[in-house]
């Protein structure tokens, strides 16, 4: 019977059927190709959950342990797959608990559709039980949002929501649906949205601008590429690689651009930004042409704007016109889709090697290796380092894992030292810096890509912000690997306190519970490592495990992450100690 319903949805578009609003919601989701959604039921969304029960062989709902977890799981799902993540919650606190995940998705351009239940329309504005103005609350952190009060509006609004979430520069969309609209009936017919007249998702590629960019690049003596997540979102990895290889331009990435070109690629010179690599930061202020592709010159990337790449001509390939000249004044702006623009650019570029210029990157890398990397990944001191844990993970996953990191020191170490062979493999909260992101995001990532090894790397602070999602992992048997790098501190804040607040460690020390016992309480296999000679075997065992696995590594308490650009300093004043 259920299969019949599905066929009707797919094949019969002209004829309509009389169904309820809540059934329409589920059938719209199925029509959009949604196979999994994450959420938490409650009063105002119950009719939709009742339909989910009926359609459970066509669409799975994963009950997270908190709505924030649902939003982050949907983000993890979207980030690894490129598809739209879906989260659902009830009105009031259910809806407000989604907001952190929505804000995270907004600043990191993650396609998300969030559906919230709302009190019945006659109660709107009456301070009803679990009523909150979620449309008002979510307005500044959504790409688009909308309240639905009539069942008949549901198909069109959901179609529009998916179209807006995934087109152009992706982002989160929230649909708030009153309970009477869920109970109401409509003549159902679903058509995918093909366009919105007030919204142009992708600017046309300006071929004149492409030609100007090519001329600047061809005449450059010291060109430098910095790419961002725009490459991944625009599926332009191959095009970028072709441009990089033809021109021989040293190329670096922002945190969200990581993995678009493999770590091992000879022209991949590492990460830019506050805890990025030494060479790309220093040489940003020596290049003559800076080619920014699908990145937005975040302050964590640029440091002090007044001293950022002032000597260089700046070319900015960008899909979002509002990003052009927002932070850094460009000489040539190439609006449009990265894949189309780079495809147009490639034949105009001269073959080159820039070997002398590239050598400068290698020389500075050698300095960074000697002063920092060596001791991070192959330490000689007693205490364990976060870097050596990452090295073991690289060895055991052969660089094929998706790394889901939380926020803080371990995140910077994970991004610096993870080896990535496959695109969409660095899933982290870049813009918003949301502690608690990793555990639920890893759940979504693993479910969207069950064949990939998914390793969550989390600090002891962030882990305890969403630790309840162990319940979701256990109940749904999600085989994620969880690594907690425990230094018994909110490490990044402590590092700042040490460097800039005379070691006044205000509220950063943590007395932690027995994390392994907690994991075991959820029937998740777990191990604690405190000594170097136990590490390799423990990581090997974790990666070999077919099930979820928890590994706590007790690392040196007061290690710092270097290099570091102190906030407000110039990228070229990056500190090695």
């Amino acid at each position, binding site marked *: 019977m259920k299969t019949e319903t599905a066929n009707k949805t797919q094949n019969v578009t002209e004829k309509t059927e009389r169904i309820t609003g809540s059934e329409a919601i589920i059938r719209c989701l199925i029509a959009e190709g949604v196979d999994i959604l994450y959420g938490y039921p409650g009063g105002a969304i119950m009719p939709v959950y009742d339909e989910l029960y009926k359609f459970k062989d066509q669409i799975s709902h994963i009950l997270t342990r908190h709505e924030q977890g649902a939003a982050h799981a949907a983000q993890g799902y979207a980030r690894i797959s490129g598809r739209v993540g879906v989260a659902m919650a009830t009105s009031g606190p259910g809806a407000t608990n989604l907001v952190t995940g929505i804000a995270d998705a907004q600043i990191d351009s993650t396609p998300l559709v969030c559906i919230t239940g709302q009190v019945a329309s006659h109660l709107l504005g009456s301070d009803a039980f679990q009523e909150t103005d979620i449309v*008002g609350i979510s*307005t500044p952190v959504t*790409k688009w949002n909308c*309240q639905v009060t009539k069942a008949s509006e549901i198909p069109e609004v959901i179609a529009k929501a998916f179209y807006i979430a995934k087109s152009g520069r992706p982002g989160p969309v929230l649909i708030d649906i009153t309970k009477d609209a869920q109970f109401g009936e409509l003549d159902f017919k679903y058509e995918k949205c093909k366009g919105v007249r*007030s919204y142009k998702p992708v600017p046309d590629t300006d071929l004149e601008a492409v030609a100007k960019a090519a001329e600047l690049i061809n005449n450059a003596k010291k060109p430098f590429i910095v790419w961002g997540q725009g490459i991944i979102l625009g599926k332009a990895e191959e095009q970028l690689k072709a441009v990089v290889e033809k021109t021989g331009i040293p190329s670096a990435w922002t945190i969200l651009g990581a993995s678009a070109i493999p770590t091992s690629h000879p022209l991949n010179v590492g990460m830019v930004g506050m805890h990025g690599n030494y060479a790309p930061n220093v040489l940003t202020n020596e290049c003559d042409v800076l080619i920014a592709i699908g990145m937005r010159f975040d302050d964590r990337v640029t440091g002090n704007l007044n001293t950022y790449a002032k000597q260089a001509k700046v070319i900015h390939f960008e899909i979002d*016109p*509002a990003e052009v000249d927002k932070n850094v004044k460009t000489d040539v702006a190439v609006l449009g889709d990265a894949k189309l623009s780079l495809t147009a650019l490639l034949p105009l570029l001269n073959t080159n090697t820039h070997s002398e210029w590239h050598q400068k990157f290698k020389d500075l890398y050698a300095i960074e290796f000697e002063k920092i990397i060596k001791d991070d990944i192959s330490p000689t001191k007693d205490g364990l380092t976060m870097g050596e844990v990452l090295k073991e993970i690289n060895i055991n996953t052969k660089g094929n894992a998706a790394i889901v990191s939380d926020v803080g020191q371990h995140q910077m170490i994970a991004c610096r030292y993870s080896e990535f062979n496959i695109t969409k493999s660095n899933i982290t909260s870049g813009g918003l810096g949301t502690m608690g992101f990793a555990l639920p995001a890893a759940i979504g990532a693993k479910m969207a890509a069950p064949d990939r090894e998914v390793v969550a790397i989390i600090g002891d602070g962030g882990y305890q912000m969403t630790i309840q999602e162990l319940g979701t992992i256990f109940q749904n048997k999600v085989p994620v690997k969880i690594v907690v790098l425990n230094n018994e501190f909110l490490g990044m804040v402590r590092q700042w306190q040490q460097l800039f607040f005379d070691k006044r460690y205000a509220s950063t020390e943590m007395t932690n519970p027995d994390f392994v016992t907690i994991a075991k309480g959820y029937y998740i296999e777990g191990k604690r490592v405190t000594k170097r000679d136990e590490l390799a075997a423990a990581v090997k065992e974790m990666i070999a495990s077919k099930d979820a696995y928890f590994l706590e590594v007790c690392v040196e308490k007061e290690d710092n992450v270097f290099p570091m650009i102190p906030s407000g300093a110039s990228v070229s004043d990056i500190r090695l100690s």
Partner: protein
Amino acid sequence: MNEEIKSFTISVYTENNIGLLNRISAIFQRRHINIESLTTSQSEIESVNRFVIVVNITESQAIKVVKQIEKQVEALKAYYHTDEDTIYTESCMFKIKSDLLFEEPQIQNIIKDSNARIVTVNKKFFVLEKSGRRHEIELLRRELNVFGIMQFVRSGRIAVTKEEMKISEMLSAFNNQL
């Protein structure tokens, strides 16, 4: 970069949807920009609304704000213009005691000189309406204030631009695409 702060008129063509005012005003709020005046009405195109927003900011701020507004899904197009680029006016109303018309003959001269219009008169009060530039309205208010004003209200600025804003062309291009 010490750019001059000037008065800019920001014109926005939008769909007529609930919540859009919130979305647009939030763009100013987030950047700590005070809105001097905001007027919204139907535009020359059926089903398209027009916002006229006056702010005192630098030109580079105006450029960025306009881009952020255009980025909103339901905003069709946004522009910024200086005072010189627009024809603009404001409107105001005064409610004044009717006795004064007879007791203070000067008031009649003020009304005549200011090109204000009497909207209604009854035994208790009369209502005066005037359109014009801010300084003209301000002058009239000061002159009448001497005699006592029961109520005063002034509208936000409305403005048309000297340059063309090709919204109709934009909309028909979209319709042809589909």
